[in-house]
């Protein structure tokens, strides 16, 4: 874990309300594992005050990317940031995706900006010799951020403007019909409603599901106790999303315990 002021090397809008920031940090890039996130200070001043959490989108050599929606004050400031300016970054944080255990195929299911952790994960899994497919859903084609580097991707849009018309659960159903469920693990990130629907579906099909969560955070490093999610198993009632998570086996947590943010 490092706290660093890192130079921005790219800042770009890549789809409707979707932006990418790339910056340089040899140390963080070397330590990062898929599913981990960064806590980024939005301002040198006190408003906005708290750091903002962003998944590590991609790592290439000493460069890291985040991909984000502009939803409020902090993200609006990130979208204004220019190449050459620096960002105050804390990371890499959190427990990575759980990659241990038996599986040889991975389906990465994203809803909207839930695409964030998937390219890094996909690259990593390919290097481990796994087969990787992406299922990427959004309301409409204009909201899909695809720079051609996404591995083996299928798309779902609510309005049918790109790929499958419908949601990612429907498209995953189709994928399973085409390709079967043997040796498969699903990794998912997106709105809680999507994760819950996916949870029900995967349960029904007996497919293991690993989810990457978001919830409001203050510190991001386990010192404030501000980010609990209720556990479905084990002795403790809550775990902290910032350190124990944000990546969980879906069956270990009660997702409904996290209130909607917006």
């Amino acid at each position, binding site marked *: *874990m*490092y*706290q660093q002021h890192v130079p921005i090397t790219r800042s770009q809008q890549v789809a409707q309300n979707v932006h990418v920031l790339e910056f340089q940090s040899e140390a963080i890039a070397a330590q990062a594992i898929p599913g981990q996130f960064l806590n980024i*200070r939005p301002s040198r001043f*006190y*408003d*906005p*005050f*708290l*750091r903002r959490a962003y998944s590590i989108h991609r790592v290439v050599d000493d460069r890291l990317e985040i991909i984000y929606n502009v939803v409020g004050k902090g993200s609006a400031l990130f979208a204004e940031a220019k190449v050459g300016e620096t960002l105050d970054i*804390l990371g890499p944080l959190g427990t990575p995706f759980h990659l241990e255990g038996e599986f040889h195929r991975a389906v990465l299911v994203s809803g909207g900006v839930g695409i964030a952790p998937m390219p890094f994960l996909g690259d990593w899994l390919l290097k481990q010799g796994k087969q990787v497919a992406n299922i990427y859903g959004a309301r409409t084609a204009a909201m899909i951020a695809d720079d051609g580097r996404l591995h083996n991707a299928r798309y779902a849009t609510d309005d049918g403007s790109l790929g499958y018309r419908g949601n990612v659960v429907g498209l995953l159903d189709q994928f399973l019909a085409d390709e079967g469920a043997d040796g498969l693990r699903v990794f998912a990130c997106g709105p809680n409603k999507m994760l819950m629907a996916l949870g029900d579906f995967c349960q029904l099909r007996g497919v293991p599901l690993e989810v990457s969560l978001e*919830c*409001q*955070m*203050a*510190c*991001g*490093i*386990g*010192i*404030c*106790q*501000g*980010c*609990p*999610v*209720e556990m479905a198993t084990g002795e*403790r*009632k*809550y775990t902290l999303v910032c*350190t124990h998570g944000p990546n969980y086996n879906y069956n270990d947590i009660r997702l409904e*315990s*996290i*209130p909607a943010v917006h």
Partner: protein
Amino acid sequence: MTELQIRNARFKNPVLTASGTFGYGLECPDLFDVSRLGGVVTKSISRKPRDGNPPQRIAETSSGGMLNSIGLANVGVDVFLDQKLPALIERKATVIVNIAASSVEEYCYVLERCEEHEGIDGYEINVSCPNVKDGGLSFGTDCPAVAQITRELRSRTDRFLSMKLTPNVTSIGEFARACEAEGADAVSCVNTFIGMDIDVGTRRPKIATITGGYSGPAILPMALAKVYEVRKAVKIPIIGIGGIMTAQDAIKFLVVGASLIQLGTVLFVDPMAATTVVKGIEEYMQQNGFSQINDLIGALDVTMQPSLVAAGWS
């Protein structure tokens, strides 16, 4: 230059981490060497482990601060003593155990359990948590109760004992006087202010318990005024807390009369703040000709303009 001793407790410098804002002092070893701090004040420890409140526990406010309703989530005294304390000692931290409870007996129980262990430099007693139903603030706003808790604990320990006061009272000086009279070595001022925020879209409170503890840079002027009030009320050392982000902020508390200060919410934004604050205080002392921290403490100049004095201000 910045060293200070109060009773048995030696503080290398006046900068401590505030309870509940630095975990057990063990969470970010990569970032920070805790032995360089004046001290680590632990998360409030209770007799039994506490799960804490349901989410939403935190919310940023637009005023440069945040609300929290953590609800004293902690591992309980047994796990603390078995697992956390030895690690803190190994890292050579000055350890102040913060204790929370819902009865006088429970405060005594937790303190007595701690007394069985070496390596604890002192206690800070949280009689001021706004975020739990049982105890906490209900003690903190009841002066005879605070006096009784101080008396009972004082009779059970020779270690450094500081009572952590709530600012959510009309006259904090009165509470400080009660603590002083019952033998407290210091008072920690202040805990969070009660605050509230809502989402106008949903018309719902931003945190689950509706109101919560307000902290961060926004509260500094209010906290400083409370420390000033306490300074006038008692002779015992004050630990100044509330909205400190920088060395300048810390110096304000020292000048008003705090002997030590604590960094709280700032650590969520800048976990390494303690290093810069310690350095900044030292630089300030050098630049302004203070060779001892004691000379800076209480160096406030409140000489009034004669016209104000004539008008009856004091």
